[in-house]
C-alpha cells in the first residue's frame, strides 16, 4: 500500500460511514478506509495506543475525514491532538460536518483543519463531495514525506 492511500474516517453514524465508504469506492483512485467510531479510537489508532499498540507503524493515513460531533473525544479535540504531535502535525484533516455554524467553521480552521466541508443532505451532492475530497487529497495533493514530518 502506497503512503497516503489510507483514509482515517472519524464518524459515529453508521449510515454516513456506509455512504462515505460507497462514495469513495466509486473513485478511480483506490483507497483503504479505517473507521474510528469515536474520537478516542481515532487517537488510539493514530498514536498506536490501547488496542492499536501492535498496528503496523508504516501504515500511516494520508487523510483524516473528521466529524465534529463524535463520542468520547470531540472532533475538535482530535484535531488539536493531531496538530500537537510531531508525527502527525502535517496530516491533512478535513472536517466533514452537518454544522453550518460559524463558530464550528472558525474553531476548525483555528485549530488547523485543512478544509471544512458541510455534509450535503442531497445524496448526489454528498457522494460528489466525498469523491472530490478523495481525488484531491489522495492524488492531487502532495504530502510531506514521512521522514521529514
Amino acid at each position: 500500500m502506497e503512503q497516503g492511500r489510507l483514509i482515517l474516517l472519524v464518524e459515529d453514524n453508521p449510515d454516513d460511514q456506509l455512504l462515505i465508504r460507497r462514495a469513495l469506492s466509486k473513485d478511480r483512485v483506490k483507497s483503504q478506509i479505517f473507521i474510528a467510531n469515536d474520537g478516542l479510537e481515532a487517537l488510539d489508532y493514530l498514536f498506536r495506543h490501547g488496542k492499536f499498540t501492535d498496528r503496523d507503524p508504516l501504515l500511516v493515513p494520508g487523510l483524516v475525514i473528521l466529524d465534529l460531533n463524535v463520542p468520547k473525544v470531540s472532533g475538535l479535540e482530535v484535531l488539536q491532538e493531531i496538530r500537537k504531535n510531531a508525527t502527525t502535525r502535517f496530516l491533512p484533516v478535513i472536517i466533514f460536518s452537518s454544522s453550518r455554524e460559524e463558530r464550528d467553521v472558525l474553531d476548525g480552521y483555528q485549530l488547523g483543519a485543512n478544509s471544512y466541508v458541510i455534509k450535503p443532505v442531497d445524496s448526489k451532492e454528498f457522494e460528489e463531495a466525498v469523491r472530490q475530497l478523495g481525488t484531491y487529497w489522495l492524488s492531487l495533493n502532495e504530502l510531506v514525506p514521512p521522514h521529514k514530518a
Partner: protein
Amino acid sequence: MFSKIKYLKDRHVTSSQFKWVGLILSVAVGVLGFVFLGLGLHIRDLNWGLDIAGMVLVTIATFHTFLWFFVGRAMKNEELLNHKNTVLESDLRAREKELAKSVSQLRRTNLDLEIVNKELESFSYAVAHDLKEPLRAITGYSNILVEDLGDRLEKDYGKMLAKINKAAISMGNLIDGLLILSRVERAEMSISNVDLSSLAKVVVDNLQGRQLYRNANFSIHDDMTVKGDYKLLTVALQNLFENAWKFTAERNVTNIEFGRTVRNNETFYYIKDNGVGFNSAYADKLFGEFQRLHPKGEYDGTGLGLATVKKIISRHGGKVFAEGKEGIGATIYFSL
C-alpha cells in the same frame, strides 16, 4: 460660637439640655448680681466693692443670656439640619437599596436570558446536526436503491424513490431556513456602514455563477451605503436576490434592478424584477412564515425567505412592503 457648638455636640449635649443649664446659670448669676447690688446699698462700708461686683455679675448674666439664646438657637438649627440630613440619608439608603435590588434583578433576568439564549443555541445546534442525519440516510439509501436496482424497479417505483429523495432534500432546506431565521432573530447586531451596492454585486455574482446559461441583466445603483449589521443585511440581500432570480427563471431575459427611491419623505431601497409577479391582494402574505403564493411543485422554496428579510428589516427599525402584478413582475421595497 461654632467651636463651642462643636464642643457641646461632641459631648452629646442636646440643645434642650443646653437651654436649661444655660437658663439656670444666667438666672443664678443674675440673682447673685442683684443680691450684691442690694447688699451694696444696705451696707455702707462695703457698697463700693459690692456694687461693682453686682454690676459685673449682672453684665455677665446678661451677656450669658444673649450667648445662651444665640448658641441655643444655632444648636437647634444644627440639630434640625442634622435631623433632616438623617432623614434624607435614610431615604437615600432606602433608594440605594431599591436600586441595588433592581440592578440585581436585572442581572438575574439578564443571566436567565443568557441561559435561554445558550439553550436555544445548543438546541439549534442539535437541530443542525441531529435532524439532518436521518435525512441523509433517507436520501442516501433511496439513491442506492435507484442506482443498484435501476431498470429492475417495476412500475413507478423509481419515480417514487426519487420523490422520497426530493422530499428529504426539501426538508433539509427547511431546517437550514429555520436555522437562519432563528439566528437572525437572536443575533447580536453590530452597526457599521454597509455598502449595499457592492454587497449586492457579490450576491449577484454568486447567483449567476450557479446558472451561467441564463441571460440576465442586473442593474445595481452605485453608492448605496447604509448603517446596519453587515451579516444580517447580507442575508437579507441574498434572500431578496434569490427570490427575484427564482421567479424570473422562465423569462427569456431576466431583468433585476436594485436601487433607491424616496416615498413619503422616506428613503426606500427596492429590488425590482420582471418575473411572474403576484396578485397584489396577497401582498401582505408574502412576508409571513411558511407563506407561499405558488404551488409547491412550481417553485422550490421554504416559504421562509421573505419572512427572514422582514425580520432583518424590522430589527433595523425599517419597513418592508411589496408591489407587483401577475405576469409583469414584483418589486420589494425596504427602508432601514
